[in-house]
């Protein structure tokens, strides 16, 4: 059964990086709807991860706006514009900087629709590079985690070019704020040293398509254990799963793709089949989305489990700079593999 990643090596298919797929998505949506515009720091030259590269030429500086370094200000501004019918996309240089605008997210953007009794809605996409990439603690947050508990937000964490494009287009058309979190190592932007750059390329069809927010995807079928992972961790998990297949352990790899809404049913159905669950995420273990998923399964499907629910995540530490330390704390293939084997012993 071919996974998305496998499709990527079919010679006939069109191969894009994640950031190329995202640029296609944003361009298509900007052509389709002139209320869509992009703002952020230095986006006229492409932004930090080249998400906006070339947009200025096609759409002009009225729709591709360089902002001052004023995150709370321009998030608030985007909220106001969205309330008045526009559909802003905010490109963050690093998702990490959004914490300086956190009140605008948590208290305004996520709640105004509700507080107003439905009088306003806020279609607004946040393009947020997430995760660790060798720059120390302040540039290494798994930002998606922080937003998981906030009602009113949607959260996407695509791992492949195909998913990135389809989800991004849905995000732009959604009438709610969407936190679109892409791992910094997955964009495949030129000039960026990617730890695992090969995994950033993949098949993207020519024809238009959308992927609904909230629908997960089984990236590899298997019988023995359910492994749920997203973002960069999905790739590491798939590598392990593929290797284990040859060793007789059949891992089903589920990519939730979105953290809110979360496709819990997809996981439950898989767990019913495999009776074992491992959750892999990059964010720190305490308070991660994996905790919520584990709790949901322990609440709704505990009877199907033959083993403890295990999690592999970063321990509760800020991310250290030194490359040896960064790799020591962030889940790697060896850790994922060994926990799978432990669970198979149950």
């Amino acid at each position, binding site marked *: 059964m071919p996974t998305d990643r496998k499709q990527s090596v079919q010679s006939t298919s069109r191969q894009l990086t994640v950031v190329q797929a995202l640029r296609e998505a944003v361009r298509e949506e900007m052509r389709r709807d002139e209320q869509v515009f992009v703002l952020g720091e230095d986006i006229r030259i492409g932004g930090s991860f080249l998400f906006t590269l070339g947009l200025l030429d096609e759409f002009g500086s009225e729709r591709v706006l360089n902002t001052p370094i004023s995150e709370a200000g321009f998030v*608030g501004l985007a909220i106001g514009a969205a309330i008045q019918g526009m559909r802003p996309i905010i490109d963050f240089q690093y998702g990490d900087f959004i914490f300086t605008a956190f009140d605008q997210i948590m208290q305004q953007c996520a709640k105004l629709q509700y507080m107003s009794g439905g*009088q*306003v809605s806020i279609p607004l996409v946040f393009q947020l590079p997430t995760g660790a990439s060798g720059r120390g603690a302040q540039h290494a947050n798994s930002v998606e985690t922080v937003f998981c508990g906030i009602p009113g937000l949607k959260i996407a964490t695509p791992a492949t070019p195909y998913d990135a494009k389809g989800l991004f287009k849905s995000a732009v058309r959604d*009438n709610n704020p969407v936190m679109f979190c892409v791992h910094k190592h997955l964009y495949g932007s030129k000039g960026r040293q990617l730890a695992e750059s090969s995994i950033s390329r993949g098949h993207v069809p020519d024809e238009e398509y959308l992927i609904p927010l909230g629908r997960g995807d089984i990236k590899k079928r298997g019988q023995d254990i359910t492994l749920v992972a997203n973002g960069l961790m999905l790739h590491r998990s798939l590598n392990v799963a593929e290797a284990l297949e040859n060793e007789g352990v059949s891992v089903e790899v589920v990519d939730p793709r979105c953290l809110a809404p979360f496709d819990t049913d997809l996981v439950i159905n898989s767990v019913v089949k495999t009776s074992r669950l491992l959750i892999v995420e990059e964010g720190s273990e305490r308070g991660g989305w994996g905790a919520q998923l584990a709790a949901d399964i322990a609440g709704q499907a505990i009877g199907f489990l033959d083993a403890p629910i295990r999690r592999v995540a970063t321990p509760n530490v800020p991310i250290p700079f030194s490359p040896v330390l960064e790799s020591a704390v962030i889940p790697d293939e060896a850790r994922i593999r060994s926990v799978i084997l432990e669970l198979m012993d149950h």
Partner: protein
Amino acid sequence: MRALTIRLPQVPDFAPLDAYDHDLLREIYRRMVLIRQFELKVNELFLQGVMPGTIHLSLGQEASAVGACLALEAGDVITLTHRGHGQALAKGVSADSLMAELFGKVTGCCRGKGGSLHVGDMSVGALPAIAIVGASSPIAAGMAFAFKRGETGQVALNFFGEGTANKGDWHEALNLAAIWKLPVIFLCENNLYGVSTHVTEVMAIDYVAERASAYGMPGSTIYGNDPIAVHEAVKSAADQARAGGGPALIECLTYRRGGHKRDDPGAYRPQEEVQAWLRTDPIPAYRERLLADSRFSLSAIEAIDAAVASTIDASVEFALASAAPTTESAWEHVYAD
């Protein structure tokens, strides 16, 4: 306390009213009285323990809310503060839907989900209030951004208090509005206090409007208890903004007649200051000016008072008679379709 004297009211000579449209003058009066009566009634309902939640009254600040909102067009929008009843009524939110909202009823302007801190009605251009100090300023700039981009000719007006001018969001909003020449008016209701804290304690300058130059924006400080002065200032700023001239900061000097919120007697305020300001109550002052204008008779004015009184009574009846929201509605509007 630094420079108490400059914080005592400096009541200017009032401009004669002859130059102003009769209906406008009348409406200014009516809305000021509407706010006053509404809030007195709300206060009473609170003391009786029949009204839920908390309230922040704007008694004494009616002139700036009304002067500002009546200088706007119907299609223009305002953002409201935690002290928003007056701003809402000034912009045209109905007393019925406002009162019902304070009671948490389904007929409230926000279906009972907002409450006193979040009142507003988009159909009259009043964005449901944002109670986090400073957070509404960039949002107002954003609405103005949409107006400018859509070339709609609309203007946004952001109400805020002098205490709010020390928030980062406010700073970022003013700068964004200035560099992009957005049609937004930052309207400061400077009532000298943020809760119990006097403005001189939290700013080393005399007036909030002095900050405008830091953004390359025009700023002015006016006597905020004269609705006409506020009206003039906002009208001219709105004209400028519509013409592409960008934002402005207008600071209205005014005063809370009571404490910060219902359980606050405001005892931290020096008596000299309180007494001096209480004497500047905008409503009697304006009423006197109307009476001095031959176009307004005492009986006409009393008729307004009476009509307002029945509007208020009706709003209480309306609210009390309205249903509470259904439990299921708690699950609605978390996400838009």
